[in-house]
């Protein structure tokens, strides 16, 4: 059971380039989330999804887009990379929307924009 898998683990982008961060989970979870974590800081919610075909904005959605065509996959798209998007990105998933449901996290994608 792989859990939540993120690819790539590391990436360097030039300003203005685009890329897609991949996230896949094999736990049949309905809820999926994308966070960014700046050095020494907590995690800020970018986008989340409550099921295939449904996505919504979190705290810091600007500069990002998501899609959820299947239950398993939740890719995060950066269209025009900016230095401010240098961060570590974490994908997470959970089975239910109950208050005590555990969220499972991937190992992160470390992105540097130069």
């Amino acid at each position, binding site marked *: 059971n792989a859990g*939540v898998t993120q690819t790539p683990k590391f990436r360097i982008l030039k300003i203005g380039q685009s890329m897609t961060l991949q996230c896949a989970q094999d736990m049949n979870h309905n*809820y999926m*989330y994308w*966070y960014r974590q700046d050095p*020494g*800081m*907590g*995690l*800020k*919610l970018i986008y*989340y999804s*409550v099921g295939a075909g449904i996505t*919504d904005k*979190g*705290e810091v959605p600007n500069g990002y887009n998501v899609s959820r065509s299947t239950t398993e996959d939740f890719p995060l798209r950066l269209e025009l990379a900016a230095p401010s998007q240098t961060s570590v990105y*974490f994908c*997470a998933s*959970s089975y239910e*929307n*109950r*208050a*005590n*449901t*555990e*969220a499972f*996290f*991937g*190992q*992160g994608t470390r992105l540097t924009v130069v």
Partner: protein
Amino acid sequence: TQLLEQSPQFLSIQEGENLTVYCNSSSVFSSLQWYRQEPGEGPVLLVTVVTGGEVKKLKRLTFQFGDARKDSSLHITAAQTGDTGLYLCLVNLNAGGTSYGKLTFGQGTILTVHP
């Protein structure tokens, strides 16, 4: 303004010392979770507290949910170097209702335990 205020932001102590980390809010929550994150890894769930006044123990870690369910604390007794990491509190906004759920973290407390 931050929904969840964690304090202190940084904590550097010697092995064997005790410490307490706080997670405070002006909002009431149906539950609150504590996660721990090690360098290069994603956060991992430590505990969920649900009832006001609830105390849960996990070996040397003691978690408490405030009576009014607005705050929580994490106390570590006799800290070890293996306790080093980032400690995060998390709440699920709109959980259990018809609205969507947003998992929202506090800023985190970076704990460094020196040998």
